[in-house]
């Protein structure tokens, strides 16, 4: 079977590009995969099924959604909320009517009216504040022959959204071996806490800074490293940061790994969540770095043995401070969590296992409907031959058996 693979790839800077760079070789060892060049409008001739990696960034994924609209296929849904993506591929291209339609499909008349407000510059963009209320995922799911996602959380959201096709939950893959760059953290500081990635309000940076300030009163030698490009909605320039905070810009992979390896705790907070999985958290797990995460979405599904979870509520800063203090003051706990993290990453996020799950999902989704149809035709023909028609009770029993052994829809 030949698979057409649509995804951003390095040197593009995106989590999905990094993910695909890791996954692709393992997948190509197992099946015939053709990587589709950026901007292609449809799958190459001769391919049997297309795999579309869809995330919320219109720059990285706009062309992929365009291709998906032309030819349905399997969607790897990296974010459940794709409002920003859909806005970028409609409004962003001057197609305001398409955006209005998408909003109406998602939110009815209210959705359309709000969209009008955005189009006419009367309301702030919805994707900045209320994207999770209007995820616009339907624009993607309507064309999906099957969905692959990385968490039970997203699976549940997709089902609640009304999608009836097959869904496979496949964990993100962990990086099996890495190259470490130069040490970035000054010697002699402890404990070292890092927060890495695109730094915005959604990563709870203000809450982290507030918690760290309190934490430092008990751990004056502690260091907080904030690494990554900063969004405009948070102020984390060098002048605004207090003592004990090191600000680093975007890091290349080797430096990133070194930083995660040198730290004592990795903080990966999120709210609102777009249903995403954190590549950074996976990296930290594979190195055995204890995690502190928000108790939301995919992060909630992490075992308690590898991550301390902080609810997003009015006590968030206090709980976060307590979590940091617990880890900062207990080296034995950190060691215990570290061992659990590497074991969990090896077991759950093993690259070979993930690639095998991909092959199984692709094969089931590509040919599954035809197979089920063939079996049901067999049954229907036999039923018809003996005079059972579709309204007979016996047929319900047969249908139940079909579903019971996993052959039904």
């Amino acid at each position: 079977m030949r698979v057409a693979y649509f995804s951003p790839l390095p040197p593009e800077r995106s989590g999905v590009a990094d993910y695909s760079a890791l996954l692709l070789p393992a997948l190509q060892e197992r099946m015939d995969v053709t990587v589709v060049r950026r901007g292609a409008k449809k799958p190459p001739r001769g391919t049997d099924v297309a795999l579309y990696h869809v995330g919320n960034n219109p720059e990285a994924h706009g062309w992929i959604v365009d291709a998906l609209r032309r030819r349905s296929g399997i969607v790897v849904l990296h974010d459940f909320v794709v409002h920003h993506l859909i806005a970028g591929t409609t409004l962003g291209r001057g197609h305001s009517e398409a955006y209005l339609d998408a909003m109406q499909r998602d939110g009815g008349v209210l959705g359309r009216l709000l969209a009008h407000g955005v189009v006419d510059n009367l309301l702030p963009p919805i994707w900045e504040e209320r994207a999770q209320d209007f995820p616009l995922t339907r624009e993607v799911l309507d064309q999906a022959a099957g969905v692959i996602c990385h968490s039970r959380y997203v699976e549940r959201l997709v089902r609640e959204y009304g999608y009836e096709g097959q869904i496979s939950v496949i964990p993100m893959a962990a990086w099996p071996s890495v190259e470490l760059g130069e040490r970035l953290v000054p010697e002699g500081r402890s404990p070292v806490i890092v927060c890495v990635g695109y730094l915005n309000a959604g990563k709870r940076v203000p809450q982290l800074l507030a918690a760290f300030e309190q934490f430092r009163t008990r751990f004056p030698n502690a260091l907080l490293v904030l690494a990554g490009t900063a969004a405009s909605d948070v102020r984390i320039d060098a002048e605004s940061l207090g003592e004990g905070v090191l600000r680093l810009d975007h890091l290349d992979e080797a430096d990133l790994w070194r930083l995660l390896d040198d730290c004592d705790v990795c903080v990966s907070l999120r709210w609102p969540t777009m249903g995403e999985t954190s590549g950074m958290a996976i990296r930290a797990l594979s190195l055995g770095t204890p995690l502190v995460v928000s108790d939301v979405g995919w992060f909630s599904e992490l075992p308690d043995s590898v991550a301390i979870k902080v609810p997003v509520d009015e006590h968030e800063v206090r709980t976060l401070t307590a979590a940091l203090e617990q880890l900062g003051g207990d080296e034995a706990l950190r060691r215990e969590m570290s061992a659990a993290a590497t074991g969990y990453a090896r077991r759950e996020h093993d690259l070979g296992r993930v690639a095998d799950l991909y092959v199984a999902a692709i094969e089931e989704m590509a040919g599954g409907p035809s197979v089920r149809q063939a079996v049901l035709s067999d049954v229907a023909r036999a039923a018809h031959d003996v005079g059972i028609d579709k309204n007979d009770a016996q047929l319900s029993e047969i249908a139940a058996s079909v579903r019971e052994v996993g052959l039904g829809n």
Partner: protein
Amino acid sequence: MRIAVCAPQVPFERGGTEILAEMLTRQLRERGHEVDEVRVPFKWYPGARVLSEALVWRLLDLDLEDRPVDLVIATKFPSYAIRHPKKVVWLVHQFRQAYELDGPEFGQFSQAPFDRATVRSIHRVDRKVLGEADRLFAISQNVADRLERSTGLVAEVLPPPPQQLDYRPATEDGGDFILSVGRLDRAKRVDLLLEAAAVDTSLQVVVAGDGPDRERLERLSAKHRLNGRVTFAGRVTDDALVDLYARCLAVYYAPFDEDFGFVPYEAFLSEKPVVTTRDAGGPLEVVVDRQNGLVSDPVPEAVAAACSWLTAHPDRARAWGRAGKETAERITWDAVVDRLVGS
């Protein structure tokens, strides 16, 4: 106890599973149980027909009000799809073409999306219907390992005793030919023995059994001018089989990744050593190199060398055959029935 023994039946075929189901039924009856065999014809092609066959088993209803069935013992795909509150599976094998035989050499499914999805659907059915069994047993470690690899399900190993024939000990002067027993299909790799006979021109071979690969094997024999040294005996009676076992020097049995294989046990009960190969699967659980047989690389030269060595060392061949008999006699129906019924 009222017990249903379930097995698929390839029409007009009689192989290992059929024999196993018959023997189990007889042994259960001898121990006072009321037993019936449930057989459904099995056809595994074209397309997704194999899945419809699983569904046929699923639709069987053994929940009889006046004569309730206390226990169902299912044996191989798709019979274990049957639904019953007390289901024990004694796994002979899954549908191997969807697992270890899936590939261009032995498989039936191509790389087309429909075929790939059929394979995945078989896996899904297996996970469901084997997962719901009260207890899972496998006839060999090889079968248990495959099951665990493919579904994550763990089965206890419970090897079946071979069919009870009137096995005779080896004749004093030993035999002079290598005997191959079994259905003639590619996976049994009788061609490897014929190629070995072409390498060592002193080897005498008798091939007992019939099957779809016979014509090709006969052509291969003619091509290597083995006529006179290789005899195709066809399907033989039980008496003739016992006689062949008694008169041969050693038994060749080297299928590719076999589930279990009764043949080595039958050979041992006839006090004959077994020549097998490192990739034979189930037979390797009972054939121990240089203790009760020889385990060679799966190439004609190595198989020829093993057979030649036995020809040159008849005393060792007899001693190894006797050692094998002790191993084979340890597997009894009492133990099998206790575990299946008592579980």
